[in-house]
C-alpha cells in the first residue's frame, strides 16, 4: 500500500501513461474535494493513488491512451466541473438534458428507443439503438434513471455507519461493494484485518458469487427461451440463497459486513449442514451444466454472438467473467492479501472466444473454484473478529474486491472520522462500455440475450 502521490496538472496524462507502461492498470478516476482529481492504479496487489490539484480544474484527457477512463472523465466533468483537453465532445453521463443522440442521419438508418421501463422484471434504463434494418450499428446508453445521489449524501457521515450507502447501492453486489468500502476505510484508518476477518469476508463474497452466477446462467437460458434451463438454475439459485439465509440470516447477506470488524459467527452444526448442502449443490450444478452444454437449441443461440475481442476488453477496461471470457487475465482474487484466497487458481474459460457462449461458460467454470473456497472456509467456520492497528492513518484509502461482475473499487477520503468523499466504481460501471462495443453488428432481437450474458447491474452504476 502506498500513499497518495501528487502530480502536477501539466504532467497528469504523462504520469498515468508512464505508470501504465510500467505494468499498472487503470482502475478509477474521480473528482475529489478541494478542486482535486484522483486516479487509482493497480499492479497485482499493489495500489497507487495519484492526485492532481487545482490548475483551474483543467487537465489533459486520458482517453486516447486509456478508453477505460471515458465514463470516469464524463462523470468528473459533471460532478466536479473538470475539463479534459482532448475529450471532445465531453458528453454528460448522469445528466438527462443532453441534446439529441449522436447520429440520426443516413440512408435507411433508424432509431429504436427502449426503456426506461423494460418488458420484463428488469431495472430501469434507456437504450437507444441505431439500426439498419434489424442490425445494430451503434448502441447509446442513457442510464442513471435510478440515481439516488448516494455518494453525495454519504459525505459528512461517520465512516463506520456510512457503510449503509455502499450497501444500498446494489442488492446483488452488496457484499462486494461493502467489503471494498470497509477495506478503503481500514486503509485510511491504518487498520489491517486479521486472518479471522479475512476468512469471514471471503466466505461472504463467495456466497454472493455462488447465487449470482447461478442466477446469470438461469437468465441466459431465459434470454433464449429455454425454460427447463431457466427453471433448473433458478431453483439452484434459490437453494444457494436459502443457504445464505441459514448461515447469515439474510438471503442477500445484508447486514453482515462492517468497518473494522465482523460479527459473523457460524456454529459447527450449521457449517456441517452447509457443507452437505454445498456437496449436493455441486452435484446438481455439474449435472445441470452438462445438460445445458449438450442442448443444441440453447448453444446454437450463444456461439459466435456478440464477440468482445481481447483488444477491446483490454482497452475499455472490461472486468470480471466478461473480460476473462475474452482472454484477459483479470481477477482480483489472485492478488487479495486482505482476503483469504490462499492458493486460489482462477478458472479457465477454455477457448476465450469472447462471445455469449464464452461468458456463460466462464461463469459455469467459476462455480467449481467458488465451491472449493466455500468448503475450505466452512471446514473451520468463521468467528467474530476485529481489525488491528497496523500503521499510520492516511487521508485516503482504497478497497478493491472481485464482485460477481468483476472488480469493484471503492475510494474513501476522510476528514477525521467522517467521510469527505465516497467513490464506488462497480464491475458493472466498468463493463457497460464493453457491452455497447460488442453489440455492434448483431441483430436487435439478440440484444436481450447479449445483455444477460453480461448481466450488469444498473443500481450500482446509477448510485
Amino acid at each position, binding site marked *: 500500500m502506498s500513499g497518495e502521490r501528487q502530480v502536477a496538472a501539466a504532467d497528469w496524462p504523462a504520469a498515468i501513461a508512464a505508470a501504465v507502461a510500467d505494468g499498472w492498470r487503470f482502475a478509477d478516476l474521480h473528482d475529489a474535494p478541494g478542486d482535486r482529481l484522483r486516479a487509482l492504479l493497480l499492479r497485482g496487489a499493489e495500489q497507487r493513488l495519484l492526485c492532481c490539484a487545482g490548475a483551474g480544474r483543467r487537465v489533459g484527457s486520458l482517453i486516447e491512451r486509456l478508453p477505460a477512463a471515458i465514463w470516469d472523465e464524463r462523470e468528473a466533468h459533471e460532478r466536479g466541473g473538470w475539463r479534459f483537453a482532448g475529450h471532445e465532445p465531453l458528453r454528460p453521463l448522469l445528466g*438527462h438534458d443532453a441534446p439529441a443522440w449522436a447520429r440520426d442521419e443516413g440512408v435507411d438508418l433508424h432509431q429504436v428507443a427502449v426503456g*426506461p*421501463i423494460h*418488458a*420484463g*422484471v*428488469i*431495472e*430501469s434504463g434507456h437504450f437507444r439503438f441505431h439500426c439498419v434494418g434489424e442490425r445494430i450499428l451503434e448502441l447509446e446508453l442513457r442510464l*442513471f*434513471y*435510478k*440515481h*439516488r*445521489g*448516494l455518494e*453525495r*449524501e454519504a459525505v459528512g457521515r461517520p465512516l463506520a455507519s456510512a457503510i*449503509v*450507502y455502499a450497501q*444500498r*447501492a*446494489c*442488492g*446483488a453486489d*452488496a457484499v462486494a461493494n461493502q467489503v471494498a468500502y470497509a477495506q478503503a476505510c481500514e486503509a485510511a484508518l491504518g487498520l489491517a484485518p486479521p486472518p479471522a476477518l479475512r476468512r469471514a469476508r471471503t466466505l461472504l463474497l463467495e456466497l454472493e458469487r455462488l447465487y449470482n452466477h447461478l*442466477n446469470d446462467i438461469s437468465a441466459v437460458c431465459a434470454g433464449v427461451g429455454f425454460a*427447463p*434451463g431457466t*427453471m*433448473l438454475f*433458478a*431453483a439452484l*439459485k*434459490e437453494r444457494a*440463497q436459502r443457504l445464505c439465509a441459514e448461515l447469515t440470516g439474510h*438471503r*442477500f447477506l*445484508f447486514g453482515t459486513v462492517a468497518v473494522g470488524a465482523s460479527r459473523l459467527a457460524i456454529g459447527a452444526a450449521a457449517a456441517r449442514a452447509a457443507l452437505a448442502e454445498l456437496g449436493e449443490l455441486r452435484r*446438481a450444478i455439474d*449435472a*445441470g451444466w452438462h*445438460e*445445458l452444454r449438450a*442442448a443444441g*437449441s440453447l448453444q446454437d443461440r450463444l456461439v459466435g454472438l456478440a464477440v468482445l475481442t481481447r483488444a477491446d476488453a483490454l482497452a475499455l477496461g472490461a472486468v470480471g467473467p466478461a473480460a476473462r471470457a475474452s482472454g484477459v487475465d483479470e481477477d482480483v482474487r489472485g492478488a487479495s492479501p486482505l482476503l483469504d484466497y490462499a492458493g486460489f487458481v482462477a478458472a479457465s474459460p477454455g477457448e476465450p472466444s469472447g462471445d455469449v457462449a464464452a461468458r456463460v461458460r466462464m461463469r459455469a467454470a467459476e462455480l467449481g473454484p467458488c465451491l472449493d473456497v466455500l468448503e475450505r472456509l466452512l471446514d473451520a467456520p468463521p468467528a467474530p473478529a476485529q481489525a488491528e492497528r497496523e500503521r499510520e492513518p492516511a487521508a485516503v484509502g482504497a478497497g478493491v474486491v472481485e464482485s460477481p461482475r468483476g472488480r469493484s473499487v471503492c475510494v474513501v477520503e476522510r476528514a477525521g472520522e467522517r467521510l469527505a468523499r465516497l467513490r464506488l466504481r462497480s464491475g458493472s460501471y466498468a463493463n457497460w462500455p464493453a457491452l455497447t462495443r460488442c453489440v455492434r453488428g448483431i441483430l436487435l432481437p439478440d440484444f436481450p440475450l447479449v445483455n444477460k450474458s453480461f448481466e450488469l*447491474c*444498473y*443500481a*450500482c452504476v*446509477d448510485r
Partner: protein
Amino acid sequence: MFVLLRQLQRLRGQIGLPPATLRGSLTLRHVDAGSRNACEHELTATANPFYDLQRYGLSLVASPRHADVLLVTGPVTTRMAGPLRTAYEAMPEPRRVAALGDCALGCGVLGAASELAAPLDHLLPVDVRIGGCPPTPAQIAEALLTLL
C-alpha cells in the same frame, strides 16, 4: 433436454407444493422506480419451482396495457416519477398498485432529497403494501394472493 425435464420433475416432487385452487387470475406489471435490484431478484424468484406463482393464475406481463396490478419497487427517483405515472395511466381500469419493498413504502430510504420525487403513496393510490428489504418470494406471493 429430457434429462433436464426429468430433473425438474423430481425437484417438483421433492418440493411438494400444494395444489393451487384457482380463484381467478391477475396480470402484473413491474416498474423499477429506483430500487437496488434485490426486490427484482425476489420478484423473479416467485416464478421458480419453489413458489411457482403462476399456478395461482398470477403472471407478469410485458405491457401496462395488459396489467391489472402495478408492482412498484424503489423509493421513486425524480427521474422515474414521470415514466411511472405514464405506465400507471396506460393501465385499464380497474387497476391496483402494489408497493413492493421497504423503499416503495417510504421506510429507511437513503439518498439526496433532490433526487427523490416523493413516497409512492403520495404519487399513486397504493392498495397493497409488501414490506421487507427485500420481501421474500413467500411474502410477495402471500400478499399478491390477497388481491385475487
